[in-house]
C-alpha cells in the first residue's frame, strides 16, 4: 500500500495534500476523514487545541498501524496528515484519506486506523480555553 504520512507544526495545507479524485491509483473508492477542532470540549468553550507529538515515533507508529490494518482490509493508498502546535477551533487537525478497490475496505481501514491512532500514537492535545 502506498502511504503518505506527515506530522507538521503549524497551519500546513491539508487541502493541497488530499488525495484528489483525478489522482486515483486505480481504485473505485476514496474515503476521507477530516478531524476538526470543536469549540466545546466537555462542556467548556475552548479557542484552540495545542498538539504535541513524540517524533519520529509518532510517524513510525502511524506506518505500523496502517500496515496492520491494511493486512485486514487491503487498500491501495493511505494519506495521514496531523498538525501539531496550536490548531484553532474550526480548523482541521487530522486528515485521513484512503483509496481502495471497493468502499468496504476503505471505510474499514479509515475507521480502524483512527481507533488505533487514539490509542497507540504518541500525540497529545491540550485545551486552550477561550
Amino acid at each position, binding site marked *: 500500500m502506498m502511504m503518505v504520512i506527515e506530522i507538521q507544526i503549524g497551519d500546513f495545507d491539508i487541502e493541497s495534500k488530499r488525495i484528489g479524485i483525478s489522482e486515483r491509483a486505480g481504485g473505485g473508492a476514496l474515503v476521507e476523514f477530516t*478531524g476538526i477542532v470543536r469549540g466545546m470540549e466537555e462542556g467548556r468553550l475552548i479557542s484552540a487545541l495545542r498538539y504535541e507529538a*513524540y517524533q519520529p*515515533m509518532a510517524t513510525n507508529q502511524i506506518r505500523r498501524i496502517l500496515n496492520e490494518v491494511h493486512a485486514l482490509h487491503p487498500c491501495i493508498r493511505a494519506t495521514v496528515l*496531523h498538525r501539531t502546535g496550536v490548531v484553532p477551533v474550526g480548523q482541521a*487537525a487530522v486528515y485521513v484519506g484512503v483509496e481502495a478497490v471497493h468502499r468496504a475496505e476503505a471505510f474499514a481501514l479509515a475507521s480502524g486506523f483512527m481507533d488505533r491512532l487514539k*490509542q*497507540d*500514537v504518541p500525540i*497529545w*492535545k491540550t485545551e486552550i480555553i477561550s
Partner: protein
Amino acid sequence: MNTEPPRTLHLLFFSIARAAAGMEETMIPCAEPLDENGLWNKLLEAHPGLAGLRNRIRLTRNSEFARSGELFEPGDEIALIPPVSGG
C-alpha cells in the same frame, strides 16, 4: 577516540508526565541494564511527582513501546507516554 560505554539514560517526558516531572528531558546515571521496576525506582527517586501516574504511563525504548520483560540499557532513549489523545 572515546570508547567508554554509555553510562546514562536519556529520559523524555510528554504531556502530563512533563508537568509532573517539571521538565521535558533529562539524563540519569545508569551503568547496568534495568528492568521496568528498576527503571521506575530510579525515576521516582529523581521525580517523586510521577508516582501517581505510574499506572497510566507506558514506557518506550528507542522509539518503540517497551515489551514486557524488556531491559533498558545504558545509552537508551526512554520516553514516558501518558494516555495519548491525537486526532
